[in-house]
């Protein structure tokens, strides 16, 4: 991972520029291995910035979350840039939003950090539970966990997020400044999706019914996703009301299909939806299925193309399913 002092020095320079409003990064969380997004308006705020395998959030979600209230008579809109620390998948999310004209490239200052994989909190909490304070450092293939006196050395594969174990683009594809050297990327084999695809229809429905039945429709998956930035989400529509607000297997299934479908060819695989879900629903398995289909059907990959996948077509798209 990038070293912290260099990161802070660079971010301080960027925060000091008068065409930058603030820079979004990561700071130590309030307990255990938690890390929280952090907003630096002044160079002093940058002192809190850290970067470690625990920095899991996709910060590309914040430019759209900033509410733009009607201006009072004499106020002028503050159009200064927003600085964002972006890992590989975060930068592809920004690229995808820019491709969809949801953001202008000059509105953001991107501080790229090559990423060697982030930790799945559920896995590390299972190994070292009930901790008030925990630090993690990476050292040639192992995570060194120092927590309240004792240290553990755990091989990376046991703690990495599932999506990071096969990450194809850990290096930012879009950045103003890069901190640290590039990392070699791995190969995605969609193993989980393939095993589920081979199952019978009945087994597949049993598998998903159990998960969708747990969904409480809190929409943390939607609000945590950088690509879910519609002004009015279809699920909040009242006329027409696509999905009813009552929490039943029918509406939950419709919601999960709607969310996954709207990310076909747009999801960059950062895994934030699965992380944010309080009910542990494996949402990435849905997104990865769509990512695999879109690659196979149209040879399309999110974040690196010119046009959204469903906004274009090619005359020889597959049509074996058409009668």
């Amino acid at each position: 991972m990038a070293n912290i002092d260099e990161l802070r020095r660079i971010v301080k320079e960027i925060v000091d520029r008068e065409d930058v409003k603030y820079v979004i990064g990561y700071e130590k969380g309030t307990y255990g291995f938690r890390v929280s997004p952090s907003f630096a308006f002044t160079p002093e705020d940058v002192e809190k910035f850290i970067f470690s395998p625990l920095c899991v959030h996709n910060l590309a979600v914040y430019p759209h979350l900033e509410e733009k209230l009607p201006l009072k008579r004499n106020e002028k809109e503050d159009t200064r840039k927003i600085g964002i620390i972006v890992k590989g998948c975060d930068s592809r999310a920004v690229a995808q939003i820019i491709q969809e004209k949801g953001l202008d490239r000059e509105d953001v200052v991107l501080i790229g950090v090559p990423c060697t994989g982030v930790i799945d909190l559920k896995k590390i909490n299972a190994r070292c539970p009930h901790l008030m304070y925990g630090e993690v450092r990476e050292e040639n293939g192992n995570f060194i966990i120092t927590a309240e006196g004792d240290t553990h050395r755990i091989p990376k594969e046991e703690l990495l997020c599932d999506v990071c174990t096969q990450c194809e683009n850990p290096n930012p594809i879009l950045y103003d400044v890069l901190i640290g050297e590039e990392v070699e990327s791995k190969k995605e084999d969609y193993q989980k999706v393939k095993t589920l695809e081979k199952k019978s229809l009945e087994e597949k429905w049993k598998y998903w019914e159990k998960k969708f039945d747990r969904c409480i429709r809190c929409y943390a998956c939607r609000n945590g996703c950088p690509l879910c930035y519609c002004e009015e989400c279809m699920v909040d529509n009242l006329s027409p009301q696509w999905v009813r607000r009552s929490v039943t297997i029918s509406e939950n299934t419709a919601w999960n299909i709607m969310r996954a479908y709207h990310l076909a060819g747009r999801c960059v695989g950062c895994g934030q939806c699965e992380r944010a879900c309080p009910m542990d629903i494996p949402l990435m398995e849905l997104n990865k299925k769509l990512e695999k289909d879109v690659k196979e059907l149209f040879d399309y990959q999110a974040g690196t193309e010119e046009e959204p996948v469903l906004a274009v077509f090619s005359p020889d798209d597959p049509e074996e399913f058409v009668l």
Partner: protein
Amino acid sequence: MNEAKDEMNEFEPNIVAFLCNWCSYAGADLAGTSRMKYPPNVRVIRVMCSGRVNPMFVINALQQGADGVLIAGCHPGDCHYVQGNYYTRRRMAVLKRLLEYIGIEPERVQMAWVSASEGQKFADVIKEITEKVKKVGPQHHFRRRNVWRI
């Protein structure tokens, strides 16, 4: 919609068909005027182009009691709006695979190119989709169980 029929031995599926106004709807009309026989299970919704069919229409139809959904449009190249059917082809390709991945039988969501002159093809398509859905049975996975039915 017709639960009473379910109890009868023969299951009669509800098929919702989105027919594009310029080709498929005209094809269906031709099938009708030429007295062609095809199962009565289909309920037609006329849309200006198959591209108008939002994938959520399909999901909503399956929720509200449809056992099968057909999206019929013009043959590629004949679309009145030039590329409407191309977009539909991509959308439905992705939707069908996602539904299958979740456990919904692929026969339930079908696409077809039916031009204005293919009355017979329209009748065959309806026969085929009704047979397939009848074999697969009623769609009760994520059908809305309305509280007030009791």
